[in-house]
């Protein structure tokens, strides 16, 4: 651990993530840092606001290592809140405010925050949480808005403007080091309980350093901030931009529904880098929003988080010959991305697979069999990741951590810590790694990582179904996978599928709600008496040509 810290301080000159903002504010305080709708912030302004808020956070009792949960939409205020949390030596936990209260409650119970930072659009959610008794009296509620946030059951203890009473000078450096946690990102859990992936400063810095160098990000760049704050992709947007002194253009979430507006945004802002999940790109391709010669200032188009449909890639590459296209691959547990592949030419065929490519600096990709032996070229096996991106593990869950982070490979004398991704892959003759889907029941839909088990647990907990199973099939549209539910109501009762969906929405986010439903008297079983999910998948795949729901 000590040697990692030394390596870090020699190469990157920052040892914690908040160092990037501080460095830029010292060097170029007037350079533009953030843009959101009509708001513009320079590095100097951002640094000063963050320093002030950090002092306020300390003043209300935040100490090094405390968790600060962010129940905020994506705005400059949210970014200030994140930087302030880091400056105070705390660990921030971004939470999706579109998630229903019961799910947020589980995250809060696990994270045990000292403080929750919120904003007026999330007031209703905070009210729900207070009604459920989730937030205790010791949890301070603060606002990233200038004014206090007011709900039916609460009024935040402070607003951002209260921070103006404090000094905007950099805080004296504290004991927080590169191997300390910077943030925790909660992802879908198959048992219904979200898992918190701990990301250290070093984890993120190593990726940022590689990415800024590989992509050549400079202060003249204007980069997109599209993925939400609870996706680790946003870590790259924010700190990659800060590290290079570039300008981060936060994409308002409202644009996501109208793909023409997304295209307009890229064009009018003169973005030089676009980074999003493939679903957003496939959506734009579907509505044919990119004219030839569009986005003249765009230099790079990057994606991560899902398989990019080759037809959508061909669509973009054909219209944007001046742009460099790069596939990034990697689970949150290995920080943002662990491998990359820049597509050298327009794929010849719509069925050509795009490799996940080559490991990023300091990382490695291993294709192993079930005994953790390395497989020869060409054989499909389990994909493991090793190296500097590996999270120390899941927050306060030694059991899940030990199950996923193991020692390997067995075939090598130097055993080291590797992460079992649950993805299948093979190493090609060309030395590139190719992705082959999941070994389990985790799927990506519209860029979201979803454990189908989480949805099943929620369905069974409703109490109105005798049986329920959730499977996923390839969808024809741009969203990746379609979530399908087979269910049997309690004996002697019947229940409308729409009612099940409505009740499910109270406990899981909208993107987890099945889009296809089928009621059964009895779900099909295999010879062991267990639900035959394979035949359910076939059933739903076959009915895909018909009208849904």
């Amino acid at each position: 651990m000590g040697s990692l810290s030394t390596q870090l301080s020699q190469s990157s000159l920052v040892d914690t993530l908040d160092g990037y903002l501080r460095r830029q504010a010292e060097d170029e305080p007037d350079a533009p840092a953030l843009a959101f709708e009509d708001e513009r912030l320079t590095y100097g302004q951002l640094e000063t606001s963050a320093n002030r808020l950090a002092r306020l956070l300390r003043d209300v009792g935040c100490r090094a290592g405390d968790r600060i949960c962010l129940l905020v939409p994506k705005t400059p205020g949210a970014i200030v809140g994140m930087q302030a949390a880091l400056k105070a030596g705390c660990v921030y936990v971004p939470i999706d405010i579109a998630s229903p209260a019961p799910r947020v409650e589980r995250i809060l119970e696990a994270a045990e925050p000292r403080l929750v930072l919120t904003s007026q659009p999330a007031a209703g959610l905070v009210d729900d949480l207070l009604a459920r008794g989730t937030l205790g009296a010791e949890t301070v509620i603060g606002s990233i808005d200038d004014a206090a946030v007011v709900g039916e059951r609460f009024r935040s203890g402070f607003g951002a403007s209260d921070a103006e009473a404090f000094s905007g000078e950099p805080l004296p450096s504290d004991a927080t080091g590169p191997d300390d946690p910077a943030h925790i990102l909660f992802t879908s859990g198959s048992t219904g309980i979200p898992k918190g992936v701990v990301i250290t400063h070093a984890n993120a810095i190593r990726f940022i350093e590689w990415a800024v160098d590989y992509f050549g990000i400079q202060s003249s760049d204007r980069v997109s901030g599209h993925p939400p704050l609870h996706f680790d992709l946003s870590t790259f947007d924010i700190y990659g931009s800060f590290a290079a002194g570039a300008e981060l253009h936060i994409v308002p979430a409202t644009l996501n529904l109208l793909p023409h507006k997304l295209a307009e945004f890229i064009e009018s802002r003169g973005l030089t880098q676009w980074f999003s999940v493939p679903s957003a790109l496939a959506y734009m391709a579907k509505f044919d929003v990119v004219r030839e010669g569009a986005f003249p200032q765009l230099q790079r188009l990057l994606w991560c988080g899902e398989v990019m449909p080759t037809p959508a890639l061909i669509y973009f590459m054909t219209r944007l010959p001046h742009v460099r296209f790069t596939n990034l691959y990697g689970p949150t547990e290995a920080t943002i991305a662990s491998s990359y592949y820049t597509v050298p030419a327009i794929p010849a065929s719509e069925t050509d697979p795009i490799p996940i490519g080559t490991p990023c600096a300091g990382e490695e990709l291993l294709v192993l069999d079930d005994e953790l032996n390395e497989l020869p070229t060409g054989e499909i096996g389990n994909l493991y990741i090793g190296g500097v991106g590996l999270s120390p593990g899941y927050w306060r869950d030694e059991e899940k951590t030990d199950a996923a982070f193991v020692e390997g490979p067995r075939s090598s004398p130097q055993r080291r810590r590797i992460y079992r991704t649950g993805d299948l892959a093979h190493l090609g003759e060309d030395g590139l790694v190719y992705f082959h889907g999941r070994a389990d029941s985790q799927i990506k839909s519209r860029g979201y990582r979803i454990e189908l088990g989480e949805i099943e647990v929620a369905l069974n907990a409703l109490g109105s179904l005798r049986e329920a199973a959730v499977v996923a099939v390839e969808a024809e549209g741009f969203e990746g996978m379609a979530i399908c539910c087979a269910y049997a109501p309690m004996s002697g009762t019947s229940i409308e599928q729409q009612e099940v969906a409505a009740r499910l929405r109270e406990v899981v986010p909208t993107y987890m709600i099945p889009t296809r439903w089928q009621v059964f008297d009895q779900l099909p079983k295999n010879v062991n008496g267990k639900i035959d999910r394979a035949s359910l998948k076939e059933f739903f795949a076959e009915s895909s040509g018909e009208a849904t729901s």
Partner: protein
Amino acid sequence: MSRRVEYSRNTRRPWLLWAVLVALTLGMVGFAISSQGPVDSDILDQVREILNRVLSVPLPADETDVIESGLLDSLGLVELLVAIERQFDVQIDLEYLDLDDLRSVHAIARTIERVKGESATGESLPAGA
């Protein structure tokens, strides 16, 4: 007692009362013109039925802001457009829509009326509509 005094003050300036009444009437007429009258209830019913089909959950109320509430996402929008085009025999060009055109049952019904009106006069539609 003071109320009687106020009343008598008003009647000393009857023109004020009339001015207010006229202003109110003009305001209401202006509002009615700008909102082009009530939306066809048949279209409203059909839109409500379509939304209940394409949203992942049933529509809570006619006034529900389906965008703000996150109920209408990109997937639902695609299905909504297909259903509208099929059921109302119109072509909806997403490029000319704003979020406000899709926010609620009422807003969507308005949008359909507008597009139908434009198609009747032969304006603003791509060829082959």
